[in-house]
């Protein structure tokens, strides 16, 4: 059974056209993360939520926003995608921070035309 679900799996958008990626989890985990992963690179943490507490990484561009309306769902909004934002976006969850496994979703591959 899928535990971390991401939709869509593939997203094509135009330069500057807003896009929203979604993530849902059936694990009832407290923490949800959004990572950006470009080809042959490590996942780069964009931000995370501990329950409703939002934590933004210092180098995450303002172009990226996130919403977590409830425990199960988390959204990544890219307000004005640029060519450099083309990447795989991974959602992950964990029960807590310390000593806990992160469960990753299958990712959404974003293409910017």
């Amino acid at each position, binding site marked *: 059974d899928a535990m971390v679900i991401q939709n869509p799996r593939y997203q094509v958008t135009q330069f500057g056209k807003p896009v929203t990626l979604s993530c849902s989890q059936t694990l009832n985990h407290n*923490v949800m993360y959004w990572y950006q992963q470009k080809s042959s*690179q490590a996942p780069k943490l964009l931000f995370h939520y501990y329950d409703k507490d939002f934590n933004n990484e210092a180098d995450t561009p303002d172009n990226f926003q996130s919403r977590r309306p409830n425990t199960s769902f988390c959204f990544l909004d890219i307000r004005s995608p640029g060519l450099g934002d083309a990447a795989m976006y*991974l959602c992950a969850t964990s029960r807590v*921070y*310390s*000593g806990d*496994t*992160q*469960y*990753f979703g299958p990712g959404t591959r974003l293409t910017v035309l």
Partner: protein
Amino acid sequence: GQQVMQIPQYQHVQEGEDFTTYCNSSTTLSNIQWYKQRPGGHPVFLIQLVKSGEVKKQKRLTFQFGEAKKNSSLHITATQTTDVGTYFCAGRSGNTPLVFGKGTRLSVIA
């Protein structure tokens, strides 16, 4: 801020050869985790190490955590084509999110 360095970046081995990837942190870690990402897939949790000097084994995979809790290694004995992928270490200091290393991409030549 905390940094996690991982080497080598790439490793090509003949099937049956051994493989090792190394991870070093700029700070003492609370714990370290290892993930495997198959080509086209997403990272999948392999193991977590918590104690100083800890060694854990999973079949042909051996994971070590250094005495100072600043380094770790993953060793695969007698690689198989199913071992192909990128192996990431990820560590944390205290109650903070994981910091991922850049990963080691393993290719296995049959």
